[in-house]
């Protein structure tokens, strides 16, 4: 009993610290990547005893210290309580959403089989969508409590944008749910270990390529980053909903945004790129088609899977940062048109085509 609770607590702590630390590292990657893209050097000033470490050390240590020691300014005519509550509302859903994403299959330790996932909910993916829908409140409340016209404009833009793209995002994964026949993310990841025609892994990207494009677009829009950064659009409304935030509270908005990137990357990996699956790696080792088998101990298999998941997540984090520094911003009417008139009908069409194909081939669900 105590051991079970300890295992769950350890898993939760591990995933939470992974998301938080990855958010911090992404802050550094974003600076260095933007510098690389714009032919600059990037953060290289601060150093500890002459050690700058490519700017990583100072970004991870100096930045938070600087943020936390800055004055916390609350606008005199703003709302003190809600102004303080808003960053918490923005950070909380971003941190807890990762709980249902599996980061490995199973780990056998001392006769105990541990499911490498924090919370095994039978409505897993709906839980992530519900947390994503709650993250609107941080923006809306922060914008309203600041008592600033730019903030309010950012908040109104943010709430309209996030509600619009939530619908497209939810509908775009319907095809995936129909093919794998479950809402549980661990089951979806396991089903992607099957092989199509004996050699192609049954990953979501091969079965639902259109859904991947729709979902990726909607997920970037949900994280409110360029090309969908209308709620904060620096050149139009200064910094939008967090224009009146400074110090630690701004850091919370900032960390929340990066945690959302990590969660989006984890969800894309799990739904479309096999989650923790390594191609041809089964529970007892590699089974290569035409070549032969390579049996491995369970611990090695589990480590390979967790490593593969981490690499995939890092790749999609990098892709989102690359997008942010290479694309221009949409106009607001373009954002709305893209969401309602392109993504939504395409997602509905994708659901219908998938349903027809599934019924025609009678091949669903692809369970192991």
């Amino acid at each position, binding site marked *: 009993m105590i051991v079970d609770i300890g295992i769950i607590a350890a898993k939760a702590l591990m995933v939470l610290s992974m998301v938080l630390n990855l958010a911090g590292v992404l802050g550094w990657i974003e600076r260095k990547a933007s510098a690389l893209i714009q032919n600059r050097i990037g953060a290289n000033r601060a150093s500890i005893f002459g050690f700058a470490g490519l700017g990583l050390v100072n970004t991870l240590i100096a930045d938070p210290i600087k943020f936390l020691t800055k004055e916390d300014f609350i606008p005199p005519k703003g*709302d003190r309580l*809600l102004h303080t509550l808003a960053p918490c509302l923005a950070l909380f859903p971003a941190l807890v959403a990762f709980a249902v994403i599996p980061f490995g299959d199973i780990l056998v330790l001392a006769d105990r089989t541990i499911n490498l996932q924090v919370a095994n*909910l*039978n*409505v897993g993916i*709906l*839980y992530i*969508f*519900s947390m*994503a*829908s*709650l993250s*609107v*409140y941080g923006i*809306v*409340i922060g*914008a*309203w409590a600041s008592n600033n016209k730019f903030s*309010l404009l950012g*908040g*109104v833009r943010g*709430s*309209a944008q*996030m*509600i619009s793209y*939530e619908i497209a995002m939810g509908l775009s994964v319907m095809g995936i749910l129909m093919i794998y026949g479950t*809402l549980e993310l661990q089951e979806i990841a396991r089903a992607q270990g099957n092989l199509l025609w004996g050699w192609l892994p049954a990953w979501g990207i091969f079965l639902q390529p259109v859904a991947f494009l729709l979902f990726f677009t909607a997920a970037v829009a949900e994280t409110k980053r360029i090309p969908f950064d209308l709620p904060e659009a620096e050149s139009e409304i200064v910094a939008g909903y967090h224009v009146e935030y400074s110090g630690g509270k701004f850091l919370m908005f900032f960390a929340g945004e990066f945690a959302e990137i990590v969660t989006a990357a984890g969800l894309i990996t799990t739904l479309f790129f096999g989650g923790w699956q390594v191609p041809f790696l089964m529970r007892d080792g590699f089974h290569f088609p035409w070549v032969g088998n390579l049996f491995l101990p369970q611990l090695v298999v589990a480590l390979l899977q967790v490593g593969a998941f981490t690499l995939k997540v890092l790749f999609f984090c990098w892709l989102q940062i690359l997008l942010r520094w290479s694309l221009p911003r949409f106009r607001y009417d373009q954002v709305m048109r893209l969401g309602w008139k392109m993504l939504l009908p395409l997602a509905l069409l994708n659901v219908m085509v998938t349903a027809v194909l599934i019924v025609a081939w009678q091949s669903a669900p692809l369970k192991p």
Partner: protein
Amino acid sequence: MTSPMILFLILAGLSIVFSLLVVFQRNVVYSAMALVATLFLIAVLFLTLEAAMVGILQILVYAGAIMVLFLFVIMLLNPGLLEGRSIAWWILGSLAAVLLLFVLVPFLSDSGRLLPGQAPAGGSFGSPESLAQSLFTDFVLPFEIASVLLLVAIVGAVVLAKREV
């Protein structure tokens, strides 16, 4: 007292406090946020009853979508503080609340018993599969009628919005 009971009392107490705040707050944004908190707490109550699907949908639809639209409208209109009500209004309102309580108490105190001809909920109760099964077989007609009703409301809203232009 068992631990589920303690959990229930904490959740129920908090949701009563927040739902009272919805009514008594003068500031509209505070009222709306208290309603969000109430809906969230009720969703957690569903989770403790093993009905994860209903709980998550409650957060997704009510706390996450409908209340965001409420706040959207509140921010666009930006009303000030609500005015206080007169004493006569309070007396009438309290009377109505007490009458409602008397109607509800017999039902609530009976809720432990099963109605004749009903079996206790099985193990898969509240799972997505069983919910979809009953929605699309036994209750498909009411379900479709509800969706037609929503469609009528949407068309009505569009017609009203068009007329102004």
